[in-house]
Structure formats: structure tokens, C-alpha cells
């Protein structure tokens, strides 16, 4: 009997749940109906054909996800800035963000492109994606559209920007700038160097003596730490004394692969000497960037090559852990052969691409044209004059309200280097950036030329091969003579053809 009542109860509970689920499902359906309507409106062909749209055309923009958190009640499609943008341009723009996870982002992009359900405008910073789409014929050629609807856009494009987005005499993307040209610098503990009696470090010999002095002063200190488990970048400060620390560099109009330069062998000999004498962290080979940071913050390490954006958090933590410690980006020493300078990113980084499947290619160009002016660029950078900022002596001063509009995502449209630097200053990062900006010198040729299929295919293999041999030679697992073996393998992988292809692309032949 008791059992019976229990089962009855269970039955009733289940039925109630069923009903509840039914109600939920009904709610969901109305939602979906709403969505469906929205999608229908987008595809409405009557609005697509008109030149100057009377009704607002919905433009779907897909961008990378570099947003800060939106304040409560707002999101990427509902906030002061995007509403102002819609009003000023006359387009109902709907922003979609790619996942932050790069692997999923790539898949989602591919699915969107393959399904035909593409956005009208894709804004990305990724040359590989652009190359891939162009080679597959997924993008709208823009020459005619720019001619007819994009006079202001054309005004912003330099010859280099035009060239690097072209393929078979057609331009497939509008490119624009990004302020972050410099990345890495030589980070050093000023106080430790001073305590070891080291003055200014200007030459290779002085650098070597400085590392030795640091170790002599306190054997527990790691003179130069690195995260070699993640590549060779953290040795850039040392490599830059021998050759430009980028893969492909142009010398007298010819593209050169730096690991093949005679100086590369000298670099290996020198780095091997440092490693053997314990001046480079013996644990570097298994260190990742977290370990490297740990060593710097805990005061165990005196020097390394790091990105400027890593420095604020390291300095802050170091100041708490080791009062009196002073970490600075210092000018890197000049090599015996006069080599100096770090890598430099091209400020032209972004691609605005219009997928072939978009029904609003013309409107997308018109929209871009309407945002390619200082007034709009200013607005997306700093907000609305009077509300979010005020102009004092020709400089922009943030008002407290600006805290609420730091979503950052709209900077991904047209931008200028100056505005980028101003934003950096407002966040307090300018000193770090400026310190490394001074020493950033060499641009990788791969970033200057249009996508070359052979390069995209082979380059990673070449990088892996170089890393493997260089690391083994530096740590002494292979003798210096293995360098010749490396060169032979490089040729085997077709490295020379890659250099040739880049040369041809760079010189426009």
C-alpha cells in the first residue's frame, strides 16, 4: 500500500515535470519564431538591390573576440557605441564574435564559410585565414566596389596595403593599421646589474661580462632566463647581436632566411658558450612562459627577452615580493658585426574581408566607407565628445564615464596608430610599449607580401626544423658541426623554393 502511494507520487511528479517542460518548450518556440523572423529580414532581396537604402540593411559583422566584459545590461549589440554607430552610418550592424579558443574559432569560420551562412564582413588579424579564403575563392573581389562605393576607403589604403591584399590583380581585403608594432625587448633587473658593478651594456663582450658578473656576485641568480620549451623567441636579445631575429628579412632588396646567414652559426657558438657556462638558465629547455615569469617575479632571474605586455604584471608582482627591485627594458647590446634590433610587426595587420556568399557586398563596402573617417574612428576609440571625453589643449582627456565603454571590440574597425597609442596611454601601458618600440626594427617579409601558398604550407615545418637543431646545438646535445646537417635538411624540405617564392612576391615578379 505504502509502496503504491509512493509510486503514484512518483508518477505525478513525472507528469508535472512533463508539463513544466512543455511550457518551457512553448516559451522557447516563441523565441525561435522571433529569431526566424530576424533571419528572414536579413535575406530579404528587395532591400539588397537599392543603392541608398531607405530601410536599414542588416549587416552581419564577424570579428575576433578581444572584448573586455560589457557592463551589466549591455552587450556587443546593445551599447552606446554601437547604437551611435548605427545611427551615424544608417546601417543596422549586428556584431558576432568568434570564439576566443583559436582552434574552435578556425572551425567555426570554416563552417560558416562552407555553409553559405556567411557574415557580410569579416574582420580578422590573421594572414593564414585570409590566404586560405583567397585561395579557395571564398572572398568578393573589391576593385570595382571600392571604385564605385568606397572613395574614402581608397584614401586610407597605402600602396603596400593594396599590394599585400591582392591576388591575381584583384584586391580581396581592405587592410588597416593596428598600433602594436613592437613586441619584445630585453628585460633586465637594473638593481642586480648595479649591485654586480655592471655599467652600461653596449657590446657583445660587455653583455657576456655582465652575465658573468651577475653569476659571480650571486651564484644563485640565473643571469639569463628563457622559455625555450616554447621556441627561440626568448633568446632574441642574444640573437639580435648576430642577425635580425625574424625569419625572413630583406637585405638590399633580396629576401634572406636569417638562420642560413653565416652569423647564425656564430650565434649558436656564442649561445652554446653561455649555456655551457650556466649563464643561460639550465632549466630553460623545459621552461614555459609561466616558469619564466615565475623566475623573474621571485627574483631568481636577472634578464630575459619578453613581450612588453608581460612586463606590467611582472613588475607589479616583483615590487610586492622584492621591494627595491627594479625591472626595466634596456637597450639591447650591439653585436660585433654591428647587428642590433628586435623584430617589428607590420602595423598593417587587419583584414576586412567580404565573403562571396554575402548578399550585401555593396552595402558592406558602403558601410566601411562611412566609418573610414576620423570622426567615427575617434568615436569608437574614445566615445562621444562631452560624455566620455573632453578635448584639452588638443589632447583627449577621458571622463569617468569612459570606464563604461571600454569594450574595445570596435577598435577592430579602421584605426590609426596615434589613437592606439593614446588608448595605451590611458590604460597606463605606454611606458612599457615605448621602451620596446625604440628597439623594434625588422619586419618579417612574410607579413609584407600577399599570401603565398608554398610558404603557408612549408613554413611551420621549417620553423620546427630550425628550433629542433638550434636548441640541440645551444644546449650541447649536438655539436656545432650539426649546423651543416641542418642546412642540408632545410634544402631537403624545399626551403630554397620558399625563399625564392617570397623573393618573387616581395619584388612583385
Amino acid at each position: 500500500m505504502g509502496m503504491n502511494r509512493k509510486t503514484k507520487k512518483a508518477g505525478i511528479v513525472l507528469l508535472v515535470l512533463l508539463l513544466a517542460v512543455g511550457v518551457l518548450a512553448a516559451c522557447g518556440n516563441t523565441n525561435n519564431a522571433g529569431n526566424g523572423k530576424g533571419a528572414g529580414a536579413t535575406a530579404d532581396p528587395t532591400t539588397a538591390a537599392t543603392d541608398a537604402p531607405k530601410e536599414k540593411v542588416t549587416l552581419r559583422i564577424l570579428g575576433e573576440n578581444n572584448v573586455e566584459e560589457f557592463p551589466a545590461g549591455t552587450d556587443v549589440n546593445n551599447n552606446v557605441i554601437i547604437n551611435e554607430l548605427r545611427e551615424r552610418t544608417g546601417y543596422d550592424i549586428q556584431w558576432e564574435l568568434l570564439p576566443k579558443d583559436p582552434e574552435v574559432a578556425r572551425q567555426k569560420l570554416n563552417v560558416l564559410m562552407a555553409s553559405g551562412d556567411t557574415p557580410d564582413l569579416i574582420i580578422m588579424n590573421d594572414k593564414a585565414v585570409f590566404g586560405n579564403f583567397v585561395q579557395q575563392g571564398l572572398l568578393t573581389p573589391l576593385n570595382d566596389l571600392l571604385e564605385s562605393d568606397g572613395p574614402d576607403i581608397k584614401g586610407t589604403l597605402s600602396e603596400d596595403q593594396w599590394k599585400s591584399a591582392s591576388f591575381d590583380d584583384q584586391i580581396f581585403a581592405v587592410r588597416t593599421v593596428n598600433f602594436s608594432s613592437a613586441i619584445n625587448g630585453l628585460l633586465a633587473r637594473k638593481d642586480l646589474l648595479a649591485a654586480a658593478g655592471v655599467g652600461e651594456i653596449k657590446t657583445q663582450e660587455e653583455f657576456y661580462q655582465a652575465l658573468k658578473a651577475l653569476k659571480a656576485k650571486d651564484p644563485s641568480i640565473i643571469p639569463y632566463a628563457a622559455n625555450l620549451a616554447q621556441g627561440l623567441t626568448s633568446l632574441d636579445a642574444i640573437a639580435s647581436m648576430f642577425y635580425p631575429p625574424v625569419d625572413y628579412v630583406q637585405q638590399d632588396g633580396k629576401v634572406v632566411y636569417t638562420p642560413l646567414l653565416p652569423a647564425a652559426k656564430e650565434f649558436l657558438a656564442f649561445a652554446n658558450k653561455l649555456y655551457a657556462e650556466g649563464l643561460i638558465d639550465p632549466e630553460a629547455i623545459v621552461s614555459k612562459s609561466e616558469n619564466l615569469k615565475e623566475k623573474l617575479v621571485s627574483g631568481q632571474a636577472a634578464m630575459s627577452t619578453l613581450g612588453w605586455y608581460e612586463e606590467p604584471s611582472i613588475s607589479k608582482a616583483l615590487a610586492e615580493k622584492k621591494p627595491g627591485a627594479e625591472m626595466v627594458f634596456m637597450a639591447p647590446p650591439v653585436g660585433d658585426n654591428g647587428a642590433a634590433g628586435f623584430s617589428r610587426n607590420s602595423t598593417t595587420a587587419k583584414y576586412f574581408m567580404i565573403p562571396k556568399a554575402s548578399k550585401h557586398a555593396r552595402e558592406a563596402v558602403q558601410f566601411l566607407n562611412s566609418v573610414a573617417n576620423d570622426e567615427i574612428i575617434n568615436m569608437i576609440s574614445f566615445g562621444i565628445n562631452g560624455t566620455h571625453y573632453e578635448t584639452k589643449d588638443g589632447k583627449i582627456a577621458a571622463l569617468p564615464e569612459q570606464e563604461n565603454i571600454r569594450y574595445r571590440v570596435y577598435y577592430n574597425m579602421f584605426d590609426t596608430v596615434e589613437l592606439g597609442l593614446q588608448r595605451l596611454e590611458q590604460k597606463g601601458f605606454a611606458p612599457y610599449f615605448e621602451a620596446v618600440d625604440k628597439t623594434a626594427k625588422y619586419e618579417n617579409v612574410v607579413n609584407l607580401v600577399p599570401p603565398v601558398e608554398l610558404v603557408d604550407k612549408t613554413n611551420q615545418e621549417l620553423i620546427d626544423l630550425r628550433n629542433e637543431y638550434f636548441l640541440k646545438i645551444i644546449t650541447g646535445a649536438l655539436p656545432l658541426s650539426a649546423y651543416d646537417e641542418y642546412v642540408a635538411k632545410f634544402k631537403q624540405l624545399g626551403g630554397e623554393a620558399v625563399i625564392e617564392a617570397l623573393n618573387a612576391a616581395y619584388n612583385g615578379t
Partner: protein
Amino acid sequence: MNTKLQSKGETAFSITNYILLLLVILICLIPVVNLVAKSFSDEASILAGDVFLWPINFNVDAYDVVLNSQRFLVSFQNSIIITVTGTILNVLLTIFTGYALSRSRLRGAKAIMMLYVFTMLFSAGIIPTYLIIKELGLLNSLWALILPSLVSPFNMIIVRLYFYGIPDSLEESAKMDGAGNLRILFQIMIPLAYPVIATIALFCAVEYWNSYFDALMYINDSGRLPLQVFLREMLMSVSDATSNIDMLSSADVPQEAIRGATVVAATLPIVIVYPFLQRFFVKGMVLGAVKG
């Protein structure tokens, strides 16, 4: 009592066993404890690598940030909606299907079964699936995460086999007492199947709670993304973020303490609820055993 029954060798074996297993438990626990300790520590100590199992400079700032984060709360809510709705619907439909297919009087049961098994072996691939979701108007809806996997053939087969083991005579006697099909299912079959229901409910709940890839594929609106997506974004390291569109965002990567706090805050509710669920499972199993 027991010790007397054991030989010396057996006792030694037990002790070694305990020690080894305890070690394994400790090894599993250390990363968790480390994370909890980090979430209560100050940033400088974490970056310096000082925090191991005990917080240094104890503070709850990180939790203050996480629990006041709009996105955390919204994502959490979404995950709960998906998990609860999804599990209930999934379990119900799996039972319905499994029960129906387990009865020999259903004509064409074998053919239907083949269709289910077919989907276990072959899938249409990601692009056609995306298109279907899109055409059904499910893009940007939480239903896109619930509906496509509503009946998992694997779970359904487990349930079907379980019902298969219940003799037909039980059903016949209920019928003689005047019970209809629904009554038989809800009042006789389902109570008998508690253990298997508990098992598949757990499978489903875990699967829904872990929705990640689908969510990123089908949902653009950040207000509808589940917790796992939020977690992954929090845990992105600087090296991941530098592939991003500007370096400014790299300088803004969340602090270690906040990452730790997010993981703890996201996991804690499940950890708290689990023992209660566990008890329910055990009870269900006993109930089934006695009756069967």
C-alpha cells in the same frame, strides 16, 4: 575480527594497498588544493610561484570579482537551464524509446533499432548539422544545445536492455488488473528501472553540463553561452591571447587568482550536490534489486 581471518601476507597486502591508494588520492587532490589555495592568495605570490597547498596573504578579492561578474552569473544560469531541462527531457525520451523498443509486440522494432544504431556509426558531419540547426531556427537558442542530442542511442540501448530483462508476465498481470499502457510504464516499469535511470541521468547531466563546442558553434549571443565557454576564456593563457587582434588585450589577461576563483566557483555547486545525488542513486539501486 577480520584481522584474525587474514594471514600475515594478506595483512601486508592490505596495508600496501591502502598506502598506495592513499598516495594516488593525494596525487589527484594536489592540483585541486593548489587551485583553491591560489584563488585565495595575492597575485604577486602566485606569480612568484610561492603558493603551493596553502594560500599566502589570504584574501577573497578574486571571489568578489567573479561573483560580481555579470557574465559568470549569466553563464552559470544558462548551464543550469541546459542541464536541468536537457536531463529531464533526455531521460524521459530515452525511457519512452527504450521501453517501446524492448517490447516484442512493437512491430518493426528491429528496423527502428537499426536506424538508431546507424546514427551511432555514421554522422552527417559538422557542416550539414550546422545547416539543420540553422534551418530549424535554433541558432542562438539554448535549445540548440539540448535538442540535437535528445536521445543518445547508447543510453537508449542500455535502457532497452534493462526493460528487456523485466518479464512480460509482470506487464500482463498489471493489464489484468486494468492498467493501461501509460500506467504500466509510469507505475510499474519506471520504478523498477530506477538504477538504470539514475545512471543515464548522470551521463546526460555531465554531458549537458560540459557543453562547449556546440555552444561555440551555434550561439553567438554572449548572454546565452554556457559556463564552460566562460571558463575556457578565463583560462586562456597569454600565449593564446597574443594571436589575438591587439596586444592590449594580452596585457589584460585575467589574473591567476581570478582564474582559480572562477574554476572553484564553477565547480563547487556540483561538488556540493553530488553526495546527495549519490545517495539517491544507491537507494534507487537497492529498490530495483529487491523488486526485481
